[in-house]
């Protein structure tokens, strides 16, 4: 019996599509609701980011609740940067009770890169320990060894970054996450399929589902910036050049084109189990991408 709708989809063997919504910096969630409405029937699940880049926002848990209210399937992104093990466990109990049953376990970005640079970084746990903690809760106990009155059950996932220069430490980490019980992985943005191919050669030995991350670029400058500053992202020179070649104003269009091309390649060559589309603030264009890629005919929960 699948723990969640998304888990069913995972086990169904279909080409998986997930995407994400970024919550607002404030109490006004109108736009987020709009995006949720736009996407909930087109994808298998929607992630809600958790203070992405350490910028304070409306909480991921809140966003997942909203998705549930509107009939969508949420993936609760949970970082260990801001809450200790008591708070994390409590949030998970709440999530489960509200039908939020997919959790993406992350360590989270450093406080130093965000907009509250004087805040205290918590990091009571890391991503692997978080995965294990969920397993412990599923067994009916909390991390203190006490009996739970009502044990939760989750479909758990983690992140992996195949496009990295020194792959061996990353693979060691990947192994640990698989061993800890991760069922699915969403990768950081990929721009070069060979990289994905190489990674899948290693990862296919495990019974886990890999969703390739697709980040939509809007300009050559954005691509260069990501190359220089964002860990786990390598944008090949060819792609940067492609973006640089277009006239002003047509950057996003080209970015979408590149994204669609990648998705199509992945699907046609069956490189991995699906894609995770990250629009980085431009959630509105995701349906266009799906259309162009020929994906996401209405999914009804």
């Amino acid at each position, binding site marked *: 019996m699948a723990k969640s709708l998304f888990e069913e989809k995972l086990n169904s063997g279909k080409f998986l599509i997930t995407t994400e919504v970024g919550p607002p910096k404030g109490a006004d969630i109108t736009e987020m609701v709009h995006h949720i409405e736009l996407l909930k029937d087109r994808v298998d699940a929607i992630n809600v980011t958790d203070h992405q880049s350490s910028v304070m926002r409306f909480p991921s848990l809140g966003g997942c609740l909203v998705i549930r209210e509107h009939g969508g399937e949420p993936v609760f992104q949970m970082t260990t940067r801001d809450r200790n093990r008591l708070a994390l466990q409590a949030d998970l109990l709440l999530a489960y009770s509200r039908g939020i049953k997919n959790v993406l376990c992350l360590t989270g970005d*450093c406080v130093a890169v965000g907009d509250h640079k004087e805040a205290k970084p918590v*990091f009571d746990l*890391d991503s692997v*320990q978080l995965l*294990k903690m969920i397993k412990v809760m599923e067994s009916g106990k909390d991390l203190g060894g006490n009996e739970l009155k009502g044990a939760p059950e989750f479909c758990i996932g983690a992140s992996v*970054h195949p496009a990295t220069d020194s792959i*061996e430490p*990353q693979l060691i980490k990947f192994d640990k996450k698989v061993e800890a019980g991760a069922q699915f992985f969403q990768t950081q943005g990929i721009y070069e399929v060979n990289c994905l191919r190489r990674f899948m050669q290693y990862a296919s030995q495990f019974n886990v589902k890999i969703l390739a991350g697709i980040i939509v670029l809007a300009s050559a400058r954005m691509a260069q910036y990501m190359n220089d500053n964002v860990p786990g992202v390598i944008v090949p020179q060819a792609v940067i050049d492609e973006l640089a070649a277009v006239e002003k104003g047509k950057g996003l269009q080209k970015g979408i084109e590149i994204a669609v091309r990648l998705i199509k390649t992945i699907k046609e060559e069956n490189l991995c189990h699906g894609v995770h589309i990250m629009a980085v603030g431009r959630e509105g264009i995701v349906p266009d991408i799906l259309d162009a890629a020929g994906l996401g005919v209405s999914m009804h929960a």
Partner: protein
Amino acid sequence: MIVAEQKPLEEIGRMIVPYEKILILGCGTCMTVCGAGGEREVSLLHRALSVAQARGGNEAHSFSEYTVKRQCDFEFLDVLVNRVDEVDAVLSLACGVGVQVLAERFPDVPVLPGVNTSFMGAYKEWGVWDERCAACGECRLAETAGICPITRCAKGILNGPCAGSKNGKCEVNKDVDCAWVLIYKRLEKLGQLEKMRRYYPPRNFRPTHRPRRIVSRADISIQEGVNG
């Protein structure tokens, strides 16, 4: 080594405002080694405050100087009794430990900290000090080839690296090495990579709960001692 940095002159200037006669007290151990509060720094601070005073045209303060071997053991402070009586405040250039022991020893005189104690660290190159130990109370350097993940990893995680590691550097600062890449490399050299493949459960933070104390003496009753 405990490493500290002298507070900005402006802040010290504000701290000493209410006091007329001030003893600038240096420390001859860690603060000397890291160049933040030894005899030379005491004399330098004295000069700096005096120049500021001379230029400001007021003569609000008069300073005296002294340096003891350490301020963190109260026996070293006994020699100061008369000097402390003569002043209105002591501006201590010792680390936080020394300042507190000093304050406890001389509760009737205000003790002001002249340095910001930063960390326990080591000399890297001339004028450069790196933090090495966070006093976590659960040293795991055997598992990480002698590289501490608490002090050298920005997130202090035990199952690293995180997603923020790029080109062997940390996402926080391109000049900072990713500790877990360093650990990987050194474990590989030692042929001990299985230590990195192991799962490390969440940290036990109990040793860090404050206030902390270590009791190293044995307390045995006479009976125990006699009867064995």
